[in-house]
């Protein structure tokens, strides 16, 4: 058998590692549009949400930490870092901590194929859209684990409700982007953005955008779909028993999800980095992303919570049918010969 493993020399190993560390992909992964970008974006979103919600509710919001309270997320983070992690006695500490970490990893993962500018993409995947949806479908697993591992009624109920909601709203989410895939014939997010240079996809796909936006709101567990978190009923839902660093990671994961999903929506429907080239492309992308996130925040301040039976009926009944209707509308558009506008 000639299957001997050749052990690389130390020199080769060091060269290999240095090669990886200085490669463009790695730098992109860490700085932009990767880790640093997401962390700053999520922290900024925490501040943005609290300020905007405050204004909607005729308050002022964070004021004291730095100018306009911009350092409020930092203050929160530092406070949570110094808190003791208290878990219930019978709760499974490993599952809770690892679950929070897994949640953060899954929240960051969808950013890989999203293009923040021409060439500013970590990995230009040919199946980028499918990869994003596959990662999103992993959320319910982790949430169920955290809810069960907390060994507390509130958490378990919250986890189950959250799982039901997220699994139910995945289906309209998948179907609503079918129209875009039909128009461009590719799952590559860079190609999808490039196809929108003349007309953004929100124009022919209004229905799809509406369904996608609603489904994303439900996936992110934001009001009006925040039943799993129902602050007046379930304390904090499945995150009840997390504390200290674990809570900070879980909390940040929630806002990271908002940021990444807003970026996805920008890439899919709002033309990505298209815009007059006076301003560089990534700035356009970020501006549109924060616009979408602000709309989500303002919706939070405006709508009441959806009842649980309406929640599931809406997902499986109405939204599904609307997404299918969107597919038919797109098919009609292509049949009428208008599909050429978006042909890459």
């Amino acid at each position, binding site marked *: 058998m000639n299957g001997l493993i050749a052990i690389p020399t130390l020199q080769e190993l060091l060269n290999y590692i240095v090669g990886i560390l200085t490669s463009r992909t790695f730098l992109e992964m860490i700085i932009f549009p990767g880790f640093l970008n997401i962390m700053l974006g999520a922290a900024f979103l925490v501040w943005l949400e609290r300020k905007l919600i405050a204004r909607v509710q005729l308050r002022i919001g964070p004021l004291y930490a730095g100018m306009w309270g911009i350092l409020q997320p930092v203050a929160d983070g530092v406070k949570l870092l110094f808190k003791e992690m208290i878990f219930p006695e019978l709760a499974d500490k490993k599952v809770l901590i690892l679950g929070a970490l897994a949640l953060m990893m899954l929240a960051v993962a969808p950013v890989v194929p999203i293009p923040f500018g021409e060439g500013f993409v970590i990995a230009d995947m040919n199946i980028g859209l*499918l990869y994003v949806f596959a990662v999103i479908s992993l959320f319910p697993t982790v949430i169920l684990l955290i809810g069960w591992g907390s060994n507390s009624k509130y958490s378990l109920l919250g986890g189950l409700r959250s799982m039901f909601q997220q699994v139910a709203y995945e289906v309209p989410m998948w179907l609503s982007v079918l129209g875009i895939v039909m128009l461009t014939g590719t799952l590559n997010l860079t190609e999808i953005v490039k196809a929108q240079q003349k007309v953004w996809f929100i124009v022919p796909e209004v229905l799809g955008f509406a369904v996608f936006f609603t489904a994303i709101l439900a996936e992110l567990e934001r009001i009006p779909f925040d039943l799993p978190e129902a602050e007046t009923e379930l304390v904090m839902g499945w995150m009840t028993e997390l504390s200290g660093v674990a809570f900070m990671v879980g909390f940040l994961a929630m806002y990271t999800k908002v940021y990444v999903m807003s970026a996805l929506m920008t890439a899919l429907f709002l033309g990505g980095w298209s815009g007059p080239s006076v301003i560089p492309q990534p700035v356009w992308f970020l501006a549109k992303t924060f616009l979408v996130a602000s709309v989500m925040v303002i919706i939070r301040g405006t709508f009441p919570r959806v009842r649980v039976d309406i929640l599931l009926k809406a997902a499986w009944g109405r939204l599904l049918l609307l997404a299918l209707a969107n597919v038919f509308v797109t098919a009609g558009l292509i049949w009428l010969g208008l599909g050429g506008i978006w042909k890459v």
Partner: protein
Amino acid sequence: MPDPIFLVLSAVVVVSAIAALEARELIYGAVGLAFSLIGVAGIFLLLGEEYLAMFQIAVYVGAVVVLIMFTIMLVRRDSGRPAEEEEPGRLGRAGAFVAGLIALAIAAAMYLVIPYSAEMPILSEISLHDLGRTLASGYALALVILGLLIGATAVGALTLAKIEPEEERGGAA
């Protein structure tokens, strides 16, 4: 030299599979199964079938594992664990022996029969378009049957798991 990525992935698959079966808590077993299935998706990626890998993650890990975990949470007796797993008895040892024999036989056959130099041909991409076209044209009947099968199993599973109203009334009385 065996590809290190392949070694790592197959280690993940095998170790998680064993952990899934031998873990004391069922939920840990489900987590082990999830890792094993993600490892299998990685193997599909190594084989150059990215679409298949994403499908595996989305369907298996995203849906089946969730179903399994949910069921595990529902079948708990008041004491906690539904069935005690003891040391594998006679049957367990015999099972391990038979399984090991089968695996060893197949592995030996692989090394002896298939020439070792059966390298992977240059990755000619199975493009998404070809896949879709084949599915829609050549295998359309299979697709329709799959759809009907999915519908039938969904209805069947729901009917099975439904709590009959007579049961509830009987329990309350």
